[in-house]
């Protein structure tokens, strides 16, 4: 084995410099190589989510996306689904901060008449085994929303609330907070849908 380099100041600085430079260059290369696939993976995920929640379409909803304000400084992204030139649905990417831990992101799909077609969960950090039942893969709870048209009395939602709060949605067992948050996200998306019609 070759003798160890001595720990002189010059040696230490030079070695660390070389190691860091090589590391940074390698990472820059890997970053460049994976940049495209990472973007595509994100787009694909979004496109799949849109496909799941609105009726069959043949346009590119992501390319035609627009932002709708639902309150001062609060905007949501919308993706129109069209077949031919006819609008067949609108997917709204919505979120709520009222979740158990962190934001819950949903993609809510509307039919042209304002009724909910389907909902898919994009991202959440709710408790596994409890709050994550909002995911289609874990339970069909979120199907309860399909076909409903959210109603409001002033700013207050009327029907999209858990039954405990006087709404029509049975909360997921032992998970009132997550269920309430889910309703909140849906109601927010409906305001975006309504405002987009104006």
């Amino acid at each position: 084995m070759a003798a160890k380099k001595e720990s002189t100041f010059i040696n230490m600085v030079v070695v660390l410099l070389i190691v860091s430079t090589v590391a940074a260059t390698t990472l820059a290369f890997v970053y460049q190589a994976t940049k495209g696939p990472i973007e595509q993976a994100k787009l694909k995920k979004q496109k799949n989510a849109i496909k799941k929640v609105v009726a069959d379409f043949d346009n590119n909803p992501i390319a035609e996306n627009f932002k709708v304000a639902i309150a001062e400084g609060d905007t949501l992204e919308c993706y129109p689904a069209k077949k031919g030139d006819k609008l067949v649905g609108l997917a709204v990417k919505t979120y709520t901060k009222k979740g158990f831990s962190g934001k819950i992101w949903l993609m809510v799909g509307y039919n042209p008449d304002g009724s909910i077609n389907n909902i898919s969960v994009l991202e959440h950090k709710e408790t596994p085994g409890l709050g994550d039942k909002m995911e289609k893969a874990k339970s069909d709870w979120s199907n309860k929303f399909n076909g409903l048209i959210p109603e409001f009395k002033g700013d207050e939602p009327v029907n999209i609330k858990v039954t405990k709060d006087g709404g029509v949605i049975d909360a997921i067992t032992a998970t009132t907070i997550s269920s309430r948050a889910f309703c909140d996200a849906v109601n927010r998306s409906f305001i975006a849908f309504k405002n987009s019609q104006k």
Partner: protein
Amino acid sequence: MEYVLIIISAIFVNNVILAKFLGVCPFFGVSKKVETALGMGGAVVFVMTIATIVTYLIQKYILDKFGIQYMQTITFILIIASLVQLVEIILKKMSPSLYQALGIFLPLITTNCAVLGVAILAVSTDGFGLMESTVYAIASAIGFGLALTIFAGIREQLDMMDVPEGMKGVPIAFVTAGILALAFMGFSGIA
């Protein structure tokens, strides 16, 4: 965001060790005595707070600005490692008594994943500014110290208990930690 909410959430509801599994190694390593647990807790409060502030500034003003977010892991860990060294040198010079108390724990902190974990969480949480991140870091570190100290207190008692042969030592410590985590889950009602 409300600071009170951040503090309560970071200490009790989302305790770094018992709910997020960050810093589990020192949790078992230095929890045999309450005294050492307190020392380690103090050192972590110190380093975690400074580390989160520095990494936050680096993230916002260097990594984000130049679009090199992929250097995050490597930059953060180097910052934490150098900070630990720096704190050690400064403490030695400025306050020998504090160094006496915390000194031996400092080198262990570099590989305490709670420090890196909290730094990454702070910059990746939406709506966290410098103030929120700092508060979050302090509260997380206090949560770490709290869990560590409670656990050390239980383990001191545990030594005197009649534990079944196969469960002696490490296994019973894990089961105890599990029960403690169960107790902390009760706090989730607060949020």
